[in-house]
C-alpha cells in the first residue's frame, strides 16, 4: 500500500481566481524521502496541509476535488485527529506551534489527547526528546528556548504521536545555519533508521540533493517535474526561471556545457570536473578604498545583564558607499552590533561615530535620519492602512513640506517597483512585498546608511535576489549598506566586505574573497562558504565567489 496517494487534486480558495492546486497526482511509497520544491505561491503549503486532512476538514476551500488517501484512509472521511496519528506536520513559524508552557507538556500534549496511559506517554516523551536531542530539557519553559530548539521541540511533539509520515513544511526557513543543520541531521537519522516516510518542503536544494530519494517540483499548482534529484536538478534554466536555486556545482557543469551526469555536491564535482580546464587569470580581490568614514566603531562592548558580554571590544571602520555583510551563528552578537549603530541598543562601552559625529548620545529617532534599520519581520515596522500612508509617515514626522513628502513617496514607489500597490493595505500583501514596504518606509527618511537585519529570511531564492538587487542599486547610489544574513551565496554575490562575528568578537574582517578562502577557519564559526567557493578552492586553489566569476577566469586550455 502507498503511504500517500493523491488523485487528481484540485483546490481553490474563496476569493481567489486561480486554483492553488490543479490536477495533482502523486504516489509516495512507504519509507520514501520526498523533497517538494517550488516558488512562493506554487501550492506547496496547500499540498502539505491536505496530507493530514487540515484541508478540507479544518480549512474549507471553496472547491476541493479529488482524493487524498493516507495508508488507505481517505482524508475526506476521517478527522484530523485520526489522521494526525499517521501524519505529523511541522510548520515554518516555530512560535505558533508551541502552545504549552513546558517542554514536557508540549511533547505529551498529542499522546495525552489520544487518551493513552500515563506510562506510555512518558515513554514516548523520553523517546521523542532523545530523537531531537532535547533530553534534559523536560522542565524548561518553551519561551526560553532558542529558535532551533523550538523547532526541534515542535518535531518532538509531533514524533510523540508516532506518525508514519513526517512532513516538514519549510520548517528550517527561519533558522540559522546551525539550526538548519540540526534539523537535517534528525531527518537523516529518520531516513537511516527507516522511522518514517518523509516529505520536506525547502528552498535549500543543495541540502535536499544530499538526502532526498525523490524531488517533486510544484509550480502554479501543478507538478512540473518528479524524479530523482539528479534528473530534476538538470533542468537548471527552468528551475532558475521559477526563482529556485539548483546546487551551484550542478549549475556550473550545466553552464560549462559539460555533457556528463551533473554533480549534486562539491566532492562529486571535484572528482568529475574535466582536467583540461585551467585558470587563465587569478580572481581580483577587491579591496575598496573609501574617502569618507561613514561608521567608525572603537572598543565597542555591550552587555544586557551585566554578566554576559554580547559584544567584546569591537573595532571597525566602514567607509561611505561600502557594501558590508555581517555573518556568524545566532547569538554571535550580529544584531546587537547593528542595533548599537542606530541607537536601539546603547552600548555599555566604546564609541560609535557616524560621519564623524558621536552617535551614542543621540536618540533613536534622530539617528533614524542617518541610519535606516530594516527588521527581519516586516510586520514589526508596518502599521498604516495603505502603502502610500506608510511611506509618508516618516517624512511628515520630519516636518517636511508636502511637495517633498509626495516626491519621496513617488520616488520610493518607483525604486521598489510597486507603483501599482500604492493604495493597497500592506496587511494583505505577500511576505516579499511586505518586506519591500518595510524597506521603503525606512528609506523615505533618506538615510545614508542602511542596515538590513536578515532581509532574506523566509523568502524564496527568487525573492531574495530581487531584494538584494534593490540593496545593490541603493549601494550604487552611494548608500552604505550593512547586511546581516545567513545566506552565504547572498554574501558572495553582493557584499564586497565581510565581518565575521563569533561570541561577541570580530573574528575576521576583509574583502569577501579573502574571508571566504579561509574555509577551515570559517568552520569554527559555523560558516560554510557557497559551493562554488569550496569547489574552486579545492580544484584550482583559488576562491571564486560566483559561477560567473569562475567562468570568466577559467577556460578550456590545451
Amino acid at each position: 500500500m502507498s503511504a500517500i496517494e493523491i488523485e487528481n487534486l484540485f483546490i481553490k480558495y474563496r476569493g481567489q481566481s486561480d486554483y492553488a492546486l490543479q490536477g495533482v497526482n502523486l504516489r509516495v511509497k512507504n519509507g520514501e524521502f520526498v523533497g517538494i520544491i517550488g516558488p512562493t505561491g506554487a501550492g506547496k503549503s496547500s499540498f502539505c496541509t491536505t496530507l493530514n486532512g487540515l484541508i478540507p476538514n479544518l480549512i474549507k476551500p471553496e472547491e476541493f476535488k479529488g482524493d487524498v488517501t493516507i495508508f488507505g484512509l481517505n482524508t475526506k472521511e476521517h478527522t484530523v485527529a485520526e489522521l494526525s496519528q499517521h501524519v505529523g506536520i511541522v510548520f515554518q513559524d516555530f512560535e505558533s506551534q508551541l502552545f504549552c508552557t513546558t517542554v514536557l507538556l508540549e511533547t505529551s500534549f498529542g499522546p495525552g489527547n489520544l487518551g493513552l496511559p500515563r506510562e506510555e506517554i512518558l515513554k514516548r516523551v523520553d523517546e521523542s526528546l532523545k530523537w531531537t536531542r532535547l533530553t534534559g530539557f523536560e522542565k524548561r519553559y518553551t519561551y526560553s528556548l532558542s529558535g532551533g530548539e523550538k523547532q526541534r521541540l515542535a518535531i518532538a511533539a509531533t514524533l510523540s504521536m508516532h506518525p508514519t509520515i513526517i512532513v516538514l513544511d519549510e520548517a528550517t526557513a527561519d533558522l540559522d545555519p546551525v539550526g538548519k543543520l540540526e534539523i537535517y541531521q534528525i531527518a537523516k537519522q529518520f531516513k537511516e533508521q527507516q522511522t518514517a516516510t518523509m516529505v520536506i518542503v525547502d528552498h535549500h536544494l543543495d541540502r535536499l540533493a544530499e538526502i532526498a530519494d525523490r524531488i517533486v517540483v510544484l509550480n502554479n499548482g501543478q507538478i512540473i517535474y518528479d524524479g530523482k534529484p539528479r534528473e530534476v536538478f538538470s533542468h537548471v534554466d527552468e528551475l532558475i526561471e521559477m526563482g529556485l536555486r539548483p546546487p551551484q556545482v550542478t549549475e556550473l557543469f550545466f553552464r560549462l556545457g559539460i555533457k556528463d551526469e551533473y554533480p549534486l555536491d562539491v566532492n562529486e564535482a571535484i572528482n568529475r570536473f574535466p582536467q583540461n580546464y585551467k585558470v587563465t587569470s587569478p580572481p581580483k580581490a577587491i579591496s575598496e578604498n573609501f574617502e569618507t568614514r561613514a561608521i567608525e566603531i572603537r572598543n565597542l562592548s555591550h552587555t544586557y545583564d551585566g554578566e554576559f558580554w554580547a559584544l567584546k571590544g569591537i573595532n571597525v571602520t566602514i567607509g561611505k558607499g561600502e557594501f558590508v555583510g555581517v555573518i556568524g551563528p545566532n547569538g554571535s552578537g550580529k544584531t546587537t552590533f547593528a542595533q548599537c549603530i542606530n541607537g536601539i541598543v546603547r552600548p555599555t562601552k566604546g564609541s560609535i561615530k557616524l560621519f564623524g559625529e558621536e552617535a551614542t548620545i543621540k536618540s533613536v529617532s534622530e539617528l533614524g535620519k542617518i541610519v535606516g534599520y530594516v527588521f527581519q519581520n516586516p510586520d514589526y515596522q508596518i502599521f498604516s492602512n495603505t502603502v502610500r500612508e506608510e511611506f509618508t509617515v516618516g517624512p511628515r514626522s520630519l516636518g517636511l513640506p508636502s511637495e517633498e513628502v509626495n516626491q519621496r513617496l513617488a520616488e520610493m514607489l518607483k525604486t521598489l517597483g510597486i507603483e501599482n500597490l500604492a493604495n493597497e493595505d500592506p496587511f494583505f500583501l505577500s511576505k516579499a512585498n511586505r518586506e519591500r514596504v518595510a524597506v521603503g518606509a525606512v528609506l523615505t527618511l533618506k538615510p545614508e546608511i542602511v542596515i538590513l537585519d536578515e532581509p532574506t529570511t523566509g523568502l524564496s531564492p527568487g525573492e531574495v535576489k530581487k531584494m538584494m538587487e534593490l540593496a545593490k542599486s541603493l549601494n550604487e547610489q552611494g548608500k552604505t549598506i550593512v547586511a546581516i544574513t545567513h545566506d552565504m551565496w547572498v554574501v558572495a554575490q553582493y557584499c564586497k566586505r565581510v565581518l565575521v562575528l563569533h561570541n561577541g568578537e570580530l573574528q575576521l574582517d576583509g574583502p569577501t574573497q579573502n574571508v571566504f578562502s579561509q574555509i577551515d577557519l570559517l568552520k569554527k564559526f559555523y560558516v560554510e562558504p557557497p559551493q562554488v567557493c569550496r569547489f574552486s578552492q579545492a580544484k584550482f586553489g583559488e576562491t571564486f565567489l560566483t559561477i560567473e566569476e569562475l567562468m570568466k577566469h577559467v577556460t578550456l586550455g590545451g
Partner: protein
Amino acid sequence: MVQYTMYIEKDTFVHRLDPRTKLLWLVCVFIWSMTFNHPLWTLMILFVVLVFGFASKTLGRFKYFWYGLLSLFLMCSLMWPFFKRGYTVLMYFGPLPLYYESVWYGLAVGIRLIAMVLAGIITFATTRVEDLLAALCKLRFPYSMAFGVSTIFRFIPTMMGDGMLIIAAQEARGVNLRGGSIWEKAKNSVPIMAPLLVTTLRRTGELAMAVEARAFRAKTERTDLYVPRLEAKDVAVMIMAIALTLIFLYLRLQGYGAILPKEM
C-alpha cells in the same frame, strides 16, 4: 532572559499547597474583604494575606507592584469619602461636607482592594500555569476553556518580546513614540499596537492548525500528566479558610466590623 511569568520558583509551604487549596483561599480572602468595611477589620484581613505572602517568600520580588498598590490605595481612600455619605461631619470643603465615617470607609475600601490584589498576586506567584490548568480540569472546567487560559499564559512572553522589538523597529524608522499629552500617547500607541495585533493574528492561524494536527479533542477523556492530589496540609488550610469565613460572616451579622451603615 527577562522574566515575564508571574510564577516565582521557590520551595515553600505555600508553593507546595494544591492549586485548588490556593484557589479556595483566594476566594475566601475575597469574601472576607468584602464582608467588612471597617479599616481595622480589613487591616486584619490584609495582615492574614501578608502572613501568607511572607510564608511564600515572594513579596520581595514584586517591588514593581508596590507603587501601583499604593496609588490604588491612595485613590480609593481619597475618593470614597466624597461619594459615601456618613453621619458625623468632620469638616467642610466649601459647600462639601466631609464625614468621619466616610473617611474610615475610604480607608477600609483601600485596604480591602490591596488585600484582594495581593492575594491574587501571591496565588499566581506560587502556582505554575500547568498546575492551575490541571486544577481547573479537576474542578470540571471544560478542557477547551482551561487550555485557552494556559495558552494565553504561554504567549504573554512572546507578545512582550514582540512588543519590545516593535517599539525599537518603529523608532528606527523615525516614528516618535515619546509624546507628551495623553492624546499624543494614545496616537503613539497605534504604531505599536497595530503591528502587535497583526503579528499575533498571523500566528493564530498557524496555531489553530498546529493544535488540530496534534489530535486536539480526539477523545473525550484525555490523559493529564499532572494530577493534583490533596494532602493533609491542604485539608487543614481549607478547613481553616472555611472556618474563618463562617466566623467572619457571623461576626458581621452580629454588627462587628462595619463602619457604614451604622445600624444593621
